[in-house]
Every structure is written in structure tokens, then in C-alpha cells.
């Protein structure tokens, strides 16, 4: 009761990275609150799955293992999650802000009439005082996220409803082994007692999934372009530059929306979070929505013709100039100096 629970997503039979990242965060939150950390795994062929979760500090692992539960469909996963939450009454429930988490989370929150905050970039514990009602609260979950196109950062709380639910994107939190020898309790859920035929009104009949060839998450060097790059053709210049220096191309949301770059390259709150050793921001103004996904880069170079661009404030080097002039010069000088 009153614990922290993480809905653990599966990726080809393994616990997804985003879920392990949330286990790590969940462990920290549970320690701060002095409660247990729970994991909920729903799927098929889950023998020994707990071995992947215990080192991350799971005290209780709920497992629903049934061939009808893989691949993911909304309703059976919702019914089981709601059932577990109603019995266990976690005070905090976390999910990945993935296609699955963003499908499941709202449905579960609606069923439990509880609040859900999407795409949090930070989670903290803190007090709250409601002056109007004269109430004070201790140990609420602060769900922190950029809002309004990244122009503001909002701290959202659920003072009265439980669980306090939040989704977080992959890469935002860091995963870390808590204790290789951590022990926890395994609870197998009797699926047949919970599910009914009405949970199976939607069926997956076909699936084509390929691991995307584009994966910039772990790239040591990222050349990222924004709307200011101006065109898909100019983006090719960034690709040439990235190829030369052994990096990958990233993009801001505005650039992706404009069709300059693939969705998989989007960096920021609604894209991937990266921590490269070098981040070269080209024609990116630097709204918080974008910087949330790259501000932990070891070194940041900003190339922008606006000397007042917000990104300049977090950059180590600021080059004021046009991207299409500066990049060819950088390529030329790089070649000249590495011969």
C-alpha cells in the first residue's frame, strides 16, 4: 500500500530501457518517501522476467503472464493495471511516455479518476500549501514539464487523487543498477479471474516493426538543425558535416514538423534526450522544449544569425552567422587541421 509502482513495458521479451530508467527514478522516490518500489509486468512468456527487475531495486513484482497479453492491446492491459492499482493503492505510478504508455496511462487514469501528467522532464517530492482551502500537503509528487510550446515550465501536482500518475520519455531519466543481489517478492496475477471477453474487442492482426536505422541516442557528436536551417537541402549540409566528424544529425521539433528531418531525429521533450560530448546547434533558437533534451551535453556550440537566441545562453561557443556559411568553413578547417 502507498508504494511507488512502475508499469514495465516489454521490448522483444526484455524490460524496455525506459521502464528500467523509471525503476531507477522510482527507487529514489520510494527511498525518499520510505516506501517500497513495485513493478508491474504484463505480457507473455515472462519466465524469469523478475531477474531483470530485481537489480533495479524492485521490492514487489506483479506478473501477469498470458499469451493473450502479447502484443499489447489497450483494454486487457488497462483492466489488469486498474485491478492491481485498486488493490495495492500505490501513491505514485510511473509509465514510459511511449506509444504504449501514452495509450494505457490516460485510460487507467480515467478509470481511477486520478490525474496524469504526460512527458515529465523531472520528478521530485515536495510539500504544497493550498491557501484557499487552508490545507497543507506533505510529500506530493512534483510533475515538472515544459508546456505551451516550451515557453513555460509547469509544476503539476495531484493533491487529492491517487495514484499520482506521470509518464516520462525514454532517456530522460538515467538507469542505474541499485543492488545486484536485491531481493523482492513475486506476485503472479491470476489473469483469468480479471479479464472478460469485453477486454478483447480490439485484435492485432498484423504487425511490421523494424528497429529504426536512425538512433541518435548514444551518438557522441550531434549536429542538430532547427527551423532556421531553412530547407531540406540545407539539412543535407548538416549530414555532410556530421559524416565528416563522425556524428549524427538531430533536429528540433520545428524542423521535423517542417519536413526537414525524420521524426526519429527529433531532440527535446517530445523527442529523444541526448547527452553527447559535442552538440552543435544550427539555426536552433533554443526553446526549453528543445533544450530539455540536450542541455546535459558536455559541450555546446550554437550557430545562429540571431545574437540574442536563447540557445546562446547555454552554449560554450556562440558563432553568430548563417549556418550555410559557417558549416562549409568548419568542414574546410576541420579537413585542413586533421590531415
Amino acid at each position, binding site marked *: 500500500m502507498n508504494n511507488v509502482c512502475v508499469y514495465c513495458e516489454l521490448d522483444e521479451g526484455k524490460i524496455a530501457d525506459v521502464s528500467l530508467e523509471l525503476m531507477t527514478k522510482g527507487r529514489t522516490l520510494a527511498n525518499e518517501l520510505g516506501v517500497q518500489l513495485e513493478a508491474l509486468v504484463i505480457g507473455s512468456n515472462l519466465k524469469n522476467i523478475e531477474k531483470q527487475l530485481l537489480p533495479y531495486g524492485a521490492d514487489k513484482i506483479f506478473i501477469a503472464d498470458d499469451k493473450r497479453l502479447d502484443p499489447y*492491446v*489497450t483494454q486487457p492491459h488497462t483492466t489488469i493495471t486498474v485491478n492491481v492499482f485498486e488493490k495495492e493503492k500505490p501513491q505514485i505510478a510511473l509509465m514510459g511516455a511511449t*506509444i504504449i504508455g*501514452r*495509450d494505457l496511462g*490516460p*485510460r487507467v*487514469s*480515467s*478509470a481511477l479518476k*486520478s490525474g*496524469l501528467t*504526460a*512527458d515529465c522532464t523531472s520528478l521530485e517530492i515536495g510539500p*504544497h500549501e493550498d491557501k484557499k482551502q487552508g490545507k497543507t500537503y506533505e510529500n506530493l509528487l*512534483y*510533475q515538472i514539464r515544459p*508546456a*505551451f*510550446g*516550451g*515557453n*513555460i515550465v*509547469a*509544476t*503539476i*501536482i*495531484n493533491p*487529492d487523487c491517487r495514484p499520482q500518475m506521470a509518464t516520462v520519455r525514454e532517456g530522460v531519466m538515467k538507469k542505474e543498477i541499485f543492488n545486484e543481489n536485491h531481493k523482492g517478492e513475486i506476485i503472479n496475477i491470476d489473469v483469468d479471474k480479471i479479464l472478460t471477453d469485453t477486454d478483447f*474487442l*480490439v*485484435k492485432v*492482426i*498484423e*504487425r*511490421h*516493426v*523494424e528497429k*529504426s536505422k536512425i538512433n541518435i541516442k548514444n551518438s557522441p557528436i550531434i549536429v542538430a538543425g532547427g527551423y532556421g536551417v531553412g530547407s531540406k537541402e540545407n539539412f543535407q549540409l548538416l549530414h555532410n558535416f556530421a559524416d565528416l566528424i563522425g556524428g549524427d544529425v538531430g533536429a528540433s521539433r*520545428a524542423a521535423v514538423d517542417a519536413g526537414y528531418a525524420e521524426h526519429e531525429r527529433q531532440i527535446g521533450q517530445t523527442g529523444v534526450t541526448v547527452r553527447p*560530448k559535442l552538440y552543435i546547434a544550427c539555426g536552433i533558437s533554443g*526553446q*526549453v522544449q528543445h533544450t530539455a533534451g540536450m542541455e546535459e551535453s558536455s*559541450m555546446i556550440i550554437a550557430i545562429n544569425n540571431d545574437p540574442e537566441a*536563447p540557445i*546562446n*545562453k*547555454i552554449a*560554450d*561557443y*556562440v*558563432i553568430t552567422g548563417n549556418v550555410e*556559411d*559557417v558549416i562549409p*568553413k568548419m568542414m574546410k*578547417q*576541420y579537413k*585542413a*587541421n*586533421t590531415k
Partner: protein
Amino acid sequence: MKGLKIVVLAKQVPDTRNVGKDAMKADGTVNRAALPAIFNPEDLNALELALNIKDSNPGTTVTVLTMGPGRAAEILREAIYRGADNGVLLTDRAFAGADTLATSYALSRAIAKMDKVDLIIAGRQAIDGDTAQVGPQVAEKLNIPQITYAEEVISIKKEKLTVKRRIEGGIEIVEGKMPCVITVNNSAPDCRPRNVRRLMKYKHATTVSERQETDDDYIGMQNGREYLDIPEWTVNNIEADIIQLGLSGSPTKVKQIESVVFAAKESKKLTDSDKDIDWLMKELISNHTLG
């Protein structure tokens, strides 16, 4: 097959993609007045999906439902110009301050008030919040299935429909049973433009509040042309538990809003001259950032 009854959920949103310098007030709050209000982009994809179904299933009706202030009637007219049969504006002070849960409760009560609805189609998410929560929550409130991230409705046979979804790294084809909720991605086809004939016919389509604010002539024009009336529903038109609406029905509260101020780093300023860039590249190579 007889036609379907489709409800499209749409939202008028501030255009957060084109935020200018005056978008924030000095006190750090958002200056909504400085942002143009637009049809939420993915709701237009949703409208297109609905109109596409209507094209191939004669007798289908498409009603667009929005919740918002009086001004939100603008997007209902826009939807009608593009081919929707009608719109419903859900507007009341009782709805103000709603988070996604209270919003979906209100919308679901409005849908429950309509004659048997086969399909509810919404954009995946709205650009002012990016939560993607209202679609699934409406489905849960109505206790019907949901199919999110849809790109295409492949077929509809009796009460069964087959839908292509865009998922991480690929696609999924699912079969669902109506009634259900579908949320649509921006990877789905763009919405058709306004139809000139419809624009002429429905130019003066208005809500009752809009007519009250305008000249008598318009009221005269409305007589005998019921199709020019955009129904406006308040809390009295839906059977709803008032506690679950608006601020009181919203479990999430905004504790704090900060406008974004970066802690300025000590950054080195360079020009685009050959000399500066040569210096920078040498620096990056010598400290092993590159090379």
C-alpha cells in the same frame, strides 16, 4: 451498408509553434491574446479521416464537437466549410479550468447525449499541451474500445473496422468493434481544403451567442435556414455531475509556472570569419572533442 454516425473531437488552440517575443507577459504568464488561435493540426487529420469514411459510406454524417469559449465556433465553421455536416459548441463557465480528465468527462457526456454514435475520431494530441490523453479518456468514460495513433481506416464491414496504426518503428493493423474511439496521427493524410460552395452556403453559420452579439440582419437571415445554426450546448444540455466538471473535476493542479530563464553560461563569442572558425576547429581537435 447504412451510413455511420461520426463525431470528430476538435480543439481550438493557440499556435504555440509560432510564438513571438510578445507571447509572454512581464509577469511570466502566457499572453494568449498575442497568439493566433488555430484548428489543432491533428484534429484536421481526424476530420479528413472522418470525411474519407463519409465519402465511401453514403448516408454517413460527421458532427464536429468542440469544448471552449464562444470564439471556438470558428473551428466548427472551418470544419463545415471543409465538409463536416455540423458542429456542436460545448461552452459554459462550469467547464473552465478543466484538465484532461474533466475535459473528457464533459465531452463524453455530450456524446452520450447524441443519437447512437458509431465512431468518435480525434486528433492524437493538441499542440498546446501535447498530452494525448483526451481521446483514450473519452473512450474509457464511454466504456468503449480505443485505437490510438491511427493513420488509415482500411475497411469497415458491419460493426467491424480495420485500422492501420503508426507505432514505434513500424505499423500495426488492428481490427476493432464499433462503437469506438480512434485518435489520428499527423502521418495520416492532410485535410482537404475548404469547398467553395460550402463556404458560400455556410458563411453565416453561427451559434446563438454569436448572433446575439451581431446585427439584426443576421438574425433575419437565420430564419428558415436551420442549417445555419451551430448548436451551442451548456452544462444544462448534458446530463453531468457538476463536481466532475471544470476545476473541481480536475485532479491535476498547476502548482507553479515559471517562464524559462537560462542560467547564462560563460560562453565564448565568435564571428563567422575564417580566423575565428579556424581557431575553434583547432581548439576542438586539440582538446579531443573532435578528431
